[in-house]
């Protein structure tokens, strides 16, 4: 499914190498020239961002396959090659990474030794780009696990009180998942070679197009993959590392952890779960949908009772991630598009939220909600921006989270109704905990130190401006993203449709007013009206 070798084949490797080279440069700059680090880091991340935006402009939105594909053998005898490619599904995640890193750097400054801080950030950017662009199983794994090291040092060195415990827990928990994934990944390649013959290869597209793996083995491997990604997403029972990591991480670390690194899990589920093992994905759908819905409701319930602002936003991320998995595993074009939209928009809103919480921490040196009150009186601009971001995060229509969540819920409603209905309650809970938190911090009398809080400076507003613009623009014009991702998502669902016999794509479309005996096979309640014609079997839902 690799698209024709389009011109700019240098673009994808550049996206990965520029940050790494930048990190190298930063390392070489002598420690005493401390004024150079931040601008250099900004230059490196911003130029990668520009490259990402350039990629967006060059992207052919009609093409479903992988574009700008480039492949270079790495370890030839095991069939591992440096294969990169981007399609509708990974395009916006790459652009999000490109945009969020410069903003995260601008948004917060490290308190001590900036040189390694910015170097690790650049390494993190390169590794994240690599993970989203890799089309070789091993290359994806390399970047998937490499991302842990910079994050570990970012949390460990520039974090808050119990940062060591949080960093170690984060590293080991994710590594536990990826240990299983490594064996699963190797088993996939080995079984593929045994099933299909020919050379041992780890190329994703080659394996996915003709897996040759028995059903049971595929299911077992899928479970290993799903476990690794479930930890990264995180899905509920495996999520307890996230609040600790977020509360202890520095602001920039939290922004990136929420905006980019969580998406590795969901992107992995989509690309290396549904695309690679369609049958196993359909088979395990009830379990993952249940975990997703559990995440939405449980995450919101626990978030309500948090006393620390950052911990609350962390649990809200758990809830938002639930929407993504819900959309992805509805296995409908609409649902998957919703999932991808939430992936990108959650990155924007939660990134902005963390920057704002960071600003509050800078001013009041506390994140305890009980000690904050009446900030709107002393910092009206900060409050106004916070209101907009909170409303966006709650999923107010017209702002960016709404289209994604709506489509994800609709997709779930179409194929797995019970889950869809329960998931919609997440809409209520989201309003509850976020507004209650907002009310306790910004409303009420400005007591004690809260009264003298400095309002948001133009520089700080400038950092958030791009995110705020995106929040409004992507809320009113989600079409910009949907058009570009649609061909790839359709191809993916078609791939699942043709690979799995018990599953057929569910699509409801308007057929017209003529009153016709409804033969709709869709399980839409007691009977399908003549108008709507559900062309999909209710499978597994």
């Amino acid at each position, binding site marked *: 499914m690799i698209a024709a070798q389009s011109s700019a084949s240098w673009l994808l490797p550049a996206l990965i190498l520029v940050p790494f080279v930048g990190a190298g440069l930063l390392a070489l700059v002598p420690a005493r020239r401390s004024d150079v680090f931040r601008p250099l880091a900004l230059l490196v991340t911003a130029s990668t961002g520009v490259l990402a935006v350039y990629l967006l402009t060059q992207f052919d939105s009609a093409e479903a396959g992988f574009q700008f594909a480039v492949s270079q053998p790495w370890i030839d005898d095991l069939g591992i090659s440096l294969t990169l490619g981007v399609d509708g599904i990974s395009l916006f995640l790459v652009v999000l990474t490109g945009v969020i890193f410069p903003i995260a750097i601008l948004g917060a400054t490290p308190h001590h030794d900036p040189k390694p801080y910015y170097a690790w950030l650049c390494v993190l950017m390169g590794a994240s780009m690599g993970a989203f662009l890799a089309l070789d199983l091993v290359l994806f794994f390399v970047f998937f696990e490499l991302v842990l090291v910079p994050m570990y040092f970012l949390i460990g060195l520039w974090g808050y009180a119990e940062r060591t415990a949080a960093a170690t*827990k984060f590293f080991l928990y994710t590594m536990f998942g990826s240990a299983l994934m490594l064996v699963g990944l190797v088993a996939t390649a080995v079984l593929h070679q045994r099933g299909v013959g020919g050379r041992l290869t780890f190329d994703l597209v080659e394996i996915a197009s003709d897996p040759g793996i028995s059903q049971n083995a595929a299911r077992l491997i899928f479970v290993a993959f799903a476990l690794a990604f479930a930890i990264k997403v995180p899905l*509920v*029972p495996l999520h*307890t590392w996230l609040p600790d990591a977020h509360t202890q991480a520095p602001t920039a670390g939290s922004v990136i952890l929420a905006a980019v690194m969580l998406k590795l899990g969901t992107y992995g589920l989509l690309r290396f779960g549904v695309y690679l093992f369609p049958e196993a994905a359909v088979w395990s759908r009830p379990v993952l949908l249940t975990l997703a819905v559990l995440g939405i409701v*449980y995450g919101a*319930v*626990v978030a*309500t*009772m*948090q006393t620390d602002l950052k911990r609350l936003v962390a649990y809200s991320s758990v809830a938002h991630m639930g929407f993504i998995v819900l959309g992805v595993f509805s296995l409908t*074009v*609409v649902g998957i*598009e919703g999932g991808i939209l939430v992936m990108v928009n959650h990155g924007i809103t939660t990134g902005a939220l963390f920057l704002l919480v960071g600003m509050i921490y800078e001013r009041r040196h506390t994140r305890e909600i009980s000690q904050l009150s*009446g900030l*709107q*009186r002393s910092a*009206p601009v900060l409050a106004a921006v916070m*209101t907009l971001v909170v409303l966006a995060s709650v999923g*107010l*229509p*017209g702002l960016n989270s*709404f289209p994604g969540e*709506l*489509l994800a819920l*609709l997709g779930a*409603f*179409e194929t797995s109704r019970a889950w869809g209905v329960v998931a*919609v*309650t997440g*809409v*209520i809970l989201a*309003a*509850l905990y976020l*507004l*209650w938190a907002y*009310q306790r911090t910004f*409303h*009420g*009398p400005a007591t004690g130190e809260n009264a003298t809080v400095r309002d948001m400076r133009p520089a700080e507003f400038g950092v958030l401006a791009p995110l705020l613009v995106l929040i409004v623009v992507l809320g*009113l*014009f*989600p079409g910009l993203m*949907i*058009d570009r991702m649609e061909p790839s998502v*359709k191809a993916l669902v078609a791939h699942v449709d043709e690979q799995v016999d018990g599953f057929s794509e569910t*699509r*409801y479309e*308007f057929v*017209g*007013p003529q009153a016709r005996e*409804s033969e709709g096979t*869709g399980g*839409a*309640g*007691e009977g*399908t*009206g*003549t*108008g*709507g014609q559900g062309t999909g079997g209710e499978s597994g839902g």
Partner: protein
Amino acid sequence: MELIWLIPALPVAGFLVLVLAGRRLGDPAAGWVASAAVAGAFVASVLVWVTLLGDADGTRQVSQTLWEWIPADSFQVSFGLLADELSILMCLFITGVGALIHVYAIAYMRGDPDFPRFFTYLNLFVASMLLLVLGDNLILTFLGWEGVGACSYLLISFWFTDPANASAGKKAFVTNRIGDFGYMLGTFLVFVTFGTVDYLQIDAAAPGIAGGTATAIALLFFLAATGKSAQLPLFVWLPDAMAGPTPVSALIHAATMVTSGVFLLTRLSPILEAAGWANDLIAWVGAVTALLAAGAAVAQNDIKKVLAYSTVSQLGFMFIAVGSQNYVGALFHMITHAFFKALLFLGAGAVIYSMAHEQDMRRYGQLRRYLPVTFGTMFVGWLAISGIPPFSGFWSKDEILAGSYTVKPAGQLLWIVGIIAAVLTAFYMTRMMIMTFAGGREEWRTEGPESLPEVPADVADATEHADSAHAGHDDHDAHHDHHLTPDHTPRESPVLMLAPLVVLAAFAAVAGVLNLPFAKSLHFLEHWVEPVIEGEGELPPGVVQWILALVSIAGAFTGVWFAWRVYQQRRVDRTRLEQPVLAHAWYIDDTYAEVVGGPGEAAFQAAADFDHEVVDGAVRGVGGGALGLGRAFRGLQTGFVRSYAFGIGLGAVALVVFAVLRMSL
């Protein structure tokens, strides 16, 4: 015809201008910009209405798609505006009443430090309301739906320094979101059934819908309507919403937002047509709400709370109409209600403004001598709402009651409940008028609560507690803090506040002409809305209709008379009437608070603790276990050479035993 986009565009433009330049514009200018924007929208609505008038009856539909909002595969949602009879009708009275209230607010909010921010939110509200009404599909209406919810949140907690106001705002938003749960599910069910969310396509495909699905859709959207239009289960937020400034109460919680539930059900009338018993449920919930709210209003001492419960009650009437498929009646009452309720709220605002922001009616009395214009206009409003002919309230309420009479299973019972509610309405409105403008003496002259008429202690502090906890007087902010002193002489409000009162009073008086029952030809509203409405609730035969009308008139007069006897002539002891159960609105809100505050919060806290102790505990346990195992292995290393040798020997023996086993099997 491309003017339609102008209607919502002007308030949006106003909003943007105020967001960017609000602070610089300052006190009055920001208000005028906002009012101009809404007035412009009104003019645009009128122009569109005029052009629509020109078209033939059935063809009055103009839609204009601005852009493809969510072009997802089979789920195509366009950002399109649809101006047809129903939506332009709504636009007219939204922008009309809205403009008046904007002008009123300029005077009312003068001197408030956040003056520009207030008008920013007001303009955003009007824009969202217009999008709600003009949207050509369920999702765009949902955008308006949530937009107005958010604006009402922002405006209720406008004076946020008082925690009560802030929590009232949150309560409103969360309760609305519970309603939105129903809205989203309803929309999904519609899409799954019809494959589209566009109104025109739904109307076309609706006839073939199966009964069960239609009922499910109707119930879900009714849940949404109860959230937004404050009906029985979810009405608790409206009384607390009085914490917002009075113009907000007038605009949002009387005229426009609360009617969106009725608008939505009317828009989906083709589906409701096949919804079977759902309609009866809607009717009965409306009736019970009307009755209970009217009951509660009787015992309220805060003037705004009285009007709030009155609004809930009047909305109940509208849902009775919708339930009995008498959509015209519902729309008619909605319009008349918009006029007289906005009038009453603004009048109350004027009273509060002139009485140093004191909202407790027991401190009023004999104000007609000081506030003649306010009294005069509120007098008209009182007549309208009490259902005294020939004022507008009578015609619209009477049409609803008539319509309810013929409802199949228990129409007569429904009518009786309606009449009782109507009587109570007359009673509490008269009570309010008397306590404010007439009554024995000027209560605020005599100092301290003990001078109040012998009110039993528990009722006094109960209502006192209720007021401070929930309503949160307006007397909160810096420049409002001068408390009502005995020597205070109330002065008439500035002309900017009185002009809208007069205009509204005029409309409240004559609005009945829209749909007089006498002759078919006089049913202008019915002809106008008829092509959009599906299904026709039939009215009882002429003579029965006359009898019902006479009974309702008699009911209204008895209500007024009885209130006169209790409050003016003090023949009956008022406390026997103002029971605490009524003051607390049948303890519905208190039970919610008990449940959410008590076991609800405990359950949430239990979940949070569970997460920390059990889920996280398990992870920490695994770590601890690993360390424990490690220490166990350390134990093995005794340091003695001989024990190591023994280990090796043991290993060798084990392997040999394995070899022997291999041999045998």
